[in-house]
């Protein structure tokens, strides 16, 4: 038992990206419900936008990859511009988090997984019409067969974890 606990400490000490690619960098202690409810609400807004702007639509993904419509490029382009201005402002003016902490940014390290995994994900995105976010929103909006896609995506993640050390990075 003691050994298992030590392993936990070891692993969390391993530098990025082993721990997590969308990390929680908050130092202030969090409570399960009280601290996390605000992410649930942010997620609800995110999910409503996904459905209302038809980003979850399989047809819109077909349209995008056929270059027949500007819609998806408009959504992604605007999101990146708004996101980039926000990140720039947070850095430039040293805006703190609600808890008064400095916002932590991480540099992404290039590895060949960005390319190979990226193409694999692209193939899956094209056929399912969904990236991971829209998968959840598709299920919520009543396309229950997508639960199978989601479970399969969890399986894919698990198999990646299993093979990680054998794959080129």
């Amino acid at each position: 038992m003691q050994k298992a606990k030590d392993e936990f400490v070891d692993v969390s000490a391993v530098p990025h990206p082993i721990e997590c690619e969308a990390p929680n960098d908050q130092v202030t202690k969090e409570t399960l419900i009280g601290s996390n409810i605000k992410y649930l609400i942010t997620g609800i807004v995110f999910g409503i936008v996904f459905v209302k702007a038809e980003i979850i639509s399989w047809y819109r993904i077909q349209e995008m990859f056929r270059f027949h419509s500007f819609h998806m490029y408009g959504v992604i382009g605007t999101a990146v511009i708004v996101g980039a201005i926000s990140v720039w402002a947070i850095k430039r003016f040293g805006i703190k988090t609600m808890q008064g902490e400095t916002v932590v940014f991480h540099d992404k390290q290039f590895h060949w997984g960005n390319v190979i995994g990226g193409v694999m994900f692209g193939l899956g995105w094209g056929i399912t019409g969904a990236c991971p976010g829209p998968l959840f929103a598709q299920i919520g909006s009543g396309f229950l067969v997508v639960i199978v896609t989601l479970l399969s995506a969890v399986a894919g993640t698990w198999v990646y974890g299993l093979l990680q050390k054998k794959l080129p990075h």
Partner: protein
Amino acid sequence: MIELMRQPWPWYVAGAVIGLTVPALLLLGNKHLGISSSLRHVCAACIPGNISFFKYDWKKEIWNLFFVGGVLIGGIIAAQALSNPDQIVISEKTVTDLQALNVTVDGELMPASIFSFENLLTIQGFLFFVVGGFLVGFGTRYAGGCTSGHTIMGLSNLQWPSLVATCCFMVGGMVMIHFIFPWLMSL
């Protein structure tokens, strides 16, 4: 107002709200947008096996599961309370292309002829849901993120590996739609 909200939202509204999620998560508590990580946390919480990739303190990252839970609830709200009374309008050219491949364009968000449980047991359904989902899960983790973590968050933070990943997502998608998908529909 509700009537207006029931209509499809324009790209610039959606893009702005999605973009604002980046600073919202950062300022609410130093969190980085990224959705595919939730799949890893599910593995770590439920089926870690003896795999070092899943041995970390997933409870610290549980905010991410609250977030995707919210996305699911948002989908329910949008479909129940704000659903579009009209049919989805997609480009004429896409409709023509899809009809040429024998896909029934039905005006819903997803074609019911493909996304149904009856289809699950066919070879097409297996490739669409099981293989497609597997590629999404395996590919995003191998790539270190998906459209949210790389394309939105990574590009917002001017990370060039995220640009590489985004281009590869597009390449994969185009290969699927233009070369593999027509073959799949002929099966």
